[in-house]
């Protein structure tokens, strides 16, 4: 297996994602957990860019990294006092969680790596934004206008619901 620039970039992205995810799940300070989550989202966007889905990467950066993380940071600052640390978990619970997770991770990796996936590489080529737009707005086969409309109703319901839940009585 020869080492290409693409492979090196992928390895760096993969290490970045895995290390940030582990830190986000284990760090004691919750504001740092939100920051590591932001790093994971950046790495995921990098993987989308590497797979030649630039539009999806841009959406990931805009909505996830731009919108959701800000929401997290705001709510963390609202709900936790300064120097707030997570309390120590009982050690048997901690070990039980760790063992269960590692076991299931091992089973999943074993099953997946034993399976032979047919295509070993993908055709490079940018997905046309015109194609995305036509598929998103067409109502015939492989058209996505119905989920597009449904998700707009869902977002409206979420705005109303969020205001209703979080308002002062």
């Amino acid at each position, binding site marked *: 297996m020869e080492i290409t620039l693409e492979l090196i970039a992928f390895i760096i992205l993969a290490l970045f994602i895995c290390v940030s995810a582990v830190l986000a799940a284990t760090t004691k300070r919750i504001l740092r957990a939100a920051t590591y989550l932001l790093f994971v989202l950046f790495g995921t966007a990098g993987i989308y860019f590497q797979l030649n889905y630039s539009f999806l990467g841009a959406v990931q950066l805009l909505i996830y990294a731009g919108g959701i993380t800000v929401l997290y940071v705001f709510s963390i600052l609202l709900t936790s006092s300064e120097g707030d640390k997570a309390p120590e978990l009982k050690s048997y619970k901690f070990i039980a969680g760790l063992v269960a*997770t590692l076991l299931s991770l091992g089973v999943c990796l074993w099953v997946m790596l034993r399976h032979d996936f047919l295509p070993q590489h993908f055709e490079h080529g940018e997905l046309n934004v015109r194609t995305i737009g036509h598929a998103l707005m067409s109502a015939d086969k492989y058209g996505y206008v119905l989920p597009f409309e449904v998700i707009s109703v869902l977002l409206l319901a979420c705005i109303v619901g969020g205001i209703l839940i979080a308002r002062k009585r």
Partner: protein
Amino acid sequence: MIKMEYYLVVSTILMFVGIYGFVTRRNLLAMLISVELILNSVDINFVVFNRFLFPEQLEGFFFTLFAIGVSAAETAVAIAIIINIYRNIRNIEVKNLREMKW
């Protein structure tokens, strides 16, 4: 040449780190962050399967696009609920949360 399995290994690790965080964290916001990790790993899986196995169709692509939108909505409502809980019992630890109705 990057094989398909490499992407799937990354997303599997991300998934189980998220599950580990969800099981061991005791703070509602930290648990929500772990849920975001799980959602991200599933998104990576959809995109990779779409790109490698069905490159001329766009099902996985659009599923990820809509999953991002749905997760934004889900986060907004969950954070509204968490802030409401904080207003009532003054912290968001799970052990203090015995009932959802006041």
